[in-house]
């Protein structure tokens, strides 16, 4: 496809995707790739189909037609938890945490995939089960530290201020050990300071070797953190390229960025 770090391998391949809700084509003829280690962004006006694309990729919504492959493996027909097993993990546009559990337990739940204790081992309370539990708790503490929520460990997920709940969501997703992380409007509702530090965090996540697919309306952030941008409008891709290319694309400006579009 288009420019970017052309050498990296394609990890996610979305091919000819369509999703119809009755008469409405939320997505039509959508094909794009995400490459290993990059930050790719999916942008577009409200109702363009960005969240729908996430839902299909992560198994929450069956596509009408089209295929999704991750590292060569077809994700079509798999359930969300099976897709997570491949390392594809998402966050939700509408804030979603385990509201009545402590922040620490939120992360422990997210770490589920990294534990291996079997039911019978747990029932017998074998030493290795206890060891694993301690190890998981250490990991949880590390992740909380990474997103800067250590001080909140004992508070309830639902009691956090909005911006921190968004961080907690990302932390839960990170706990699930993703190789591809899909973020659906992670900074919506954050104040400018929180947004700025979240942008740093995107860099740190990426430095851990995690590929990122980002949906975001904050154009300053998109243009700054992305290697490549895919633009959706009314369910169809209208442009794809580097942030620079996208900001000069006449159709994108007309459909979405408008006159006020800023350069990164």
């Amino acid at each position, binding site marked *: 496809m288009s420019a970017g770090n052309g050498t990296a391998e394609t990890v996610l391949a979305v091919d000819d995707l369509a999703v119809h809700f009755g008469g409405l084509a939320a997505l039509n003829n959508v094909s794009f790739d995400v490459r290993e280690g990059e930050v790719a962004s999916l942008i577009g006006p409200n109702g363009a189909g960005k969240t729908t694309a996430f839902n299909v990729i992560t198994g*929450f919504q069956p596509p009408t037609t089209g295929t999704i492959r991750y590292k060569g493996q077809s994700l079509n027909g798999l359930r969300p*938890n099976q897709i997570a097993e491949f390392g594809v993990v*998402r966050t939700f546009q509408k804030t979603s945490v385990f509201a*009545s*559990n402590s922040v*620490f337990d939120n992360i422990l739940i997210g770490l589920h995939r990294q534990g291996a204790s079997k039911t019978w081992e747990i029932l017998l309370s074998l030493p290795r089960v206890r060891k694993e539990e301690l190890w998981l708790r250490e990991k*949880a503490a590390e992740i909380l530290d990474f997103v800067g929520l250590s001080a909140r*460990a004992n508070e309830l997920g639902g009691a956090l201020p909005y911006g921190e709940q968004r961080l907690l969501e990302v932390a*839960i997703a990170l706990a699930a050990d993703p190789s591809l992380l899909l973020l659906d409007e992670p900074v919506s509702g954050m104040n400018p300071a929180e947004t700025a530090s979240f942008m740093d965090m995107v860099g740190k996540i990426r430095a851990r070797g995690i590929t990122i697919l980002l949906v975001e309306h904050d154009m300053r952030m998109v243009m700054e953190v992305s290697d490549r941008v895919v633009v959706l409008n009314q369910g169809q891709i209208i442009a794809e390229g580097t942030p620079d290319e996208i900001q000069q694309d006449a159709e994108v400006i007309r459909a979405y960025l408008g006159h006020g579009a800023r350069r990164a």
Partner: protein
Amino acid sequence: MNRWLTWAWVAFLLTLPLWMEDQYFLHILITSGIFTIAAMSLNLLLGYTGQLSLGHVAFFGIGAYTSALVSLGFDLELTDTYTFVFAPRPVWVAFVAGIVVAGMSGWLIGKISFKVRGAYFVIVTISFAEVVRLVALNWVDLTEGPMALNNIPPFTLAVPGVWELAFFHKLPNYYLVLAVAIVSYVTVRRLVHSRIGRAMIALRENEPLAASAGVDVTRYLVLAAIVSAAMAGAAGGLYTHYIRIVDPDVFLFIYTVTMVIMVITGGKGTLAGPIVGGLIFGILPEVLREFASPEVQWIIYGVFMIMIVFFLPNGIVPALSAWWNDRFGATPSAGGPGTGLPDLEAATRTAGEAT
């Protein structure tokens, strides 16, 4: 503190028959204990996965009937010429068979409920219990129907050829029920304090988020249903060999309701909740019986329950522990880094109060 309380409680129950000689009261404790085990099993589903099983008595009854039939033996006329004869087996074997068959029916319900949650799960479980009751009532060849299975043998302990004790008396039954209750408690405790329990709680709290983090939600729902049903089946087995008669009335809806009341008033999603609820609603009716006619009993029972639900919406145990924490300023034990095992119970408890 918690540990101390647990051990003190166990010691109290262990020594109770030594000074408590009233056989009738011991009987009440045995039946309350059996119901408490059933309530603990229901709590695993209702309190931790958040799925209300309103047919829970089916698992209890299946355990009771299976254990009774295996210990009594039975004949089934399969065709005109062939009769299947099942010879009586030792009571312990029967008891285990009851647990296994109940667990298998839990697996079945879990599988059927693959995609149904909430109200639909309730309907599936109610229907299941009704079907099983009708089978017990109408398959007279096997179950004797309304005539009931009689002369069910009691549990026995034996050193072959040397010594044998059949559990005709209350005392050994009391200790047996206590032992099974402790095993059930430890089972639930270990499960809910592990990654499995967290997966169940995740299913209850936010299923899409759990799934997207890689929790195989269905699998843990099925697992909870199996363990829960097996435990209810164990309670049914204890009941059947203690009372020594079982009829289709074990499947009555009122027993499920009783279990639900025990769990909810005690505190669903807490380890001690079903025990507190089980003992209160096991003993209360018997105590009331001395003072009040059956109708008045039911009214008192009902008023008491409404008051608990009204004033302590999360149940007695969460209210007590909140009071204790307020009063004695215990630090919240939601479990920060390095505090040992996670205390999900505390977390969910505080959750209830915050909302």
